C-alpha cells in the first residue's frame, strides 16, 4: 500500500487554493455581520451580479478585462451601499429573523433580475488559461491566480481594519454603537461604508470566480450556503475564525471530493458543520 499518494497531495494543495477563495468569499459577509449584525442571505447573489457585470462589460461591451473587473467591483460596492440604505436600514430595529428574511427577498429579486437581463443560458468570459503542471500534479491557473488575489484581498482588508481610522471605527462600532457619536463618528455612515466594503469584496470574489466558472442566474445557490456556513463555523463576525473555517471546509470539499465524489465532499463538509454547531455553537473560534 502506498503511504504517499501524489494525487492526494494534489487534492490537499487544491484544497488550499480553494480555501483562499472561500476565505475571501466569506470575509465580506462576515464583516457585514460583525458590524451591522445582519446576515445577508443574498450575498452570493451579489457575487453573481458582479460576475455578470464583468461579463457584460468585457464580452458585450468589449472593455479590457481588468477595466471590466474594476468597474464590476465598483458596481457591486454601490449595490452593497444601496442594499443597506433601502433594504436593511428600514428593518434595523425589527426582529433579527425578519432582517434575515428581507435579504432572502433580495436573493430572489437579484436572481430574477439576472435572468431577465441575461437569460438562463450559461455564459463565460471565453478566457481559457492553461493548467500549471508541477511534476505529476496539475493545477488550474485561474485557481492559482484566485488564491493569490484572494490572499492579497484578505490582507489588504485586514490592514485597512487595523491601521486606518475608518477601519478602526468599523471594528469599534460593533463593540459599542451607542457612544460612537462621542468620537465624532456617524454610525449610519459607518454602516453604509461597511456595506459598500462588503459589496466590494463580493465584487472582487466575482472577478475571481468568473475566471473559473460559467455564469448562471442560480450560481449563487451553489456557493451561497457554503459561504454562510463558513462564517457561522468560524463564529459569525469573527473574521479570523472565518478564515480558519474556510481552509478547513476547503479541505473537506477537496479531499473528500477526491476520495469519493465532489458532492460527497460537500456533504461531509456540511455534516461536519452541523456536528461542530452542536459541539461549539458559538463557532470554532468564537468566544462565549
Amino acid at each position, binding site marked *: 500500500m502506498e503511504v504517499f499518494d501524489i494525487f492526494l497531495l494534489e487534492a490537499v494543495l487544491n484544497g488550499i487554493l480553494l480555501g483562499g477563495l472561500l476565505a475571501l468569499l466569506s470575509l465580506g459577509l462576515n464583516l457585514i455581520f460583525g458590524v451591522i449584525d445582519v446576515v445577508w442571505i443574498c450575498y452570493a447573489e451579489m457575487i453573481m451580479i458582479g460576475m455578470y457585470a464583468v461579463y457584460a462589460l468585457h464580452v458585450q461591451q468589449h472593455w479590457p478585462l481588468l477595466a471590466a473587473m474594476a468597474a464590476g467591483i465598483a458596481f457591486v460596492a454601490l449595490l452593497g451601499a444601496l442594499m443597506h440604505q433601502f433594504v436593511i436600514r428600514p428593518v434595523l430595529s425589527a426582529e433579527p*429573523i*425578519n432582517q434575515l*428574511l*428581507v435579504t432572502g427577498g433580495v436573493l430572489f429579486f437579484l*436572481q*430574477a433580475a439576472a435572468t*431577465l437581463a441575461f437569460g438562463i443560458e450559461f455564459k463565460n468570459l471565453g478566457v481559457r488559461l492553461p493548467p500549471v503542471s508541477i511534476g505529476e500534479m496539475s493545477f488550474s491557473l485561474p485557481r492559482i491566480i484566485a488564491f493569490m488575489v484572494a490572499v492579497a484581498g484578505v490582507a489588504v482588508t485586514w490592514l485597512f481594519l487595523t491601521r486606518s481610522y475608518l477601519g478602526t471605527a468599523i471594528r469599534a462600532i460593533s463593540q459599542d454603537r451607542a457612544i460612537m457619536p462621542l468620537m465624532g463618528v456617524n454610525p449610519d455612515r459607518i454602516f453604509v461604508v461597511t456595506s459598500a466594503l462588503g459589496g466590494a469584496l463580493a465584487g472582487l470574489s466575482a472577478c475571481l470566480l468568473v475566471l473559473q466558472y460559467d455564469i448562471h442566474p442560480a450560481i449563487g445557490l451553489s456557493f451561497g450556503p457554503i459561504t*454562510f456556513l463558513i462564517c457561522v463555523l468560524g463564529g459569525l463576525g469573527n473574521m479570523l475564525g472565518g478564515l480558519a473555517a474556510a481552509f478547513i471546509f476547503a479541505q473537506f470539499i477537496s479531499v473528500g471530493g477526491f476520495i469519493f465524489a465532489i458532492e460527497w465532499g460537500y456533504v461531509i463538509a456540511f455534516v461536519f458543520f452541523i456536528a461542530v454547531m452542536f459541539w461549539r455553537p458559538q463557532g470554532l473560534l468564537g468566544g462565549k
Partner: protein
Amino acid sequence: MKFLALALLAGTPFYGLGNYLLHLVIMCLLWGYVYTSWSIMGRLGLVSFGHGAFLGIGAYSVVMLWNHFGVSPWIGALAGVVASALVAVIIGLPCFRFKIVGHYFALVTLALSEVTRLVIVALRDQTGGSLGATPNTALAQGNPWSLGALQFSDKIVWFYAILVVWLAGLWVWTKVDRGMTRLALEAISQEEEAAASIGINVTRSKLFVTLISAVMTSIGGVLYAQYQLYINPETVSGIGISLQMVFGVIVGGMFVVLGPTVGAVFTLLLSEGLRLALGDAFKQFPALDLAIYGLMLVLFIIYLPKGILGTATDAWRKHSSARAAARR
C-alpha cells in the same frame, strides 16, 4: 359560514373549470398544506430553512422504494415519514438542548436541506441525480387508477385527497395553536429562561412541534411526487425550495391559520396571473414573476411583517372593535 365556504371549495371539480384551473387549485392546496406544516414551527420562532430536507426525504423515499424495490407508496410514505422524523430528532434534539436559536438555527437547518439535496444528487445512479426521477407507472394497461401504487390519472381524485390532507393540516395547526404546548412555546419563543423557570420542558416542547412539522412536510413531499409523477432535487430539496416555503408563509401571515394557504395562493396566482397577463412578453421575460415576487417579499417584510391575512385580520379586528366602542 365556514362550512359554506368549505362546501363551495369541495364543489370545485364540478364547476367545469377545466384541467388547468383544477390543477392550479390542487397546487394551491398542496403548497398551502406544506406551508401550513412549516408555519407550525415558524410561528413559534423556530424559523427553519431546512424544510426542503423533509420534503425531499418524503418524495424520494416513496419514489425510490417503488422504482427499485416495488414497495407500495403507502409503505414508502410510511418509510419517508419515519426517516423524516428521525432526521428531525437528530437535528432538533441537539439544537434545542444546546439552545441554538435564531440565525444559528436557520443556518443549521439550511445546511441540512443542502445535505439532502447533495446526497440526492450524489446518488445519481439510483436517483437520476439532477435530472430527476419519475415513478414507474402502474397505469399501463388502460387503468385509470391504481390505489396500491397511489397513482391516479383523474385530477378529481387528487383534488379530494389533497383537500382532505390540507384540512387535516389546518386541524393540526389549530390543535397545536390551542393546545397547552402553544402557551408553553409562546413563552419559549419570547423568553426561554422564563419558560424553563415555570416548569416547561423547553427541549421536549420544541422537539414535539418540530416532529409534527417535519412529518407533515414529508407527507407533502409524498403527495407532490405522486401527483406530479416527477421530482428533481432542486424542486423538492435544497435552499431554493426551503426559502420559498419560508417566504410563502411570511407573505400570507404565519400567525393565522389560513395565512400559509393565502401565501401559497398568492404566490401561485402571482406567477400564473403574470404569465396570463403578460402573454407573449412573459415568454421573453421568464423571470419577471420571480423579480416581482422578490420585490414584494422585501416590501412585505418591511411594511407588512404580519403578512396579507395577518394584517387584514388585524385591521378587521381594529375596525370592529372601534365600531363596538362607537355603539357603546
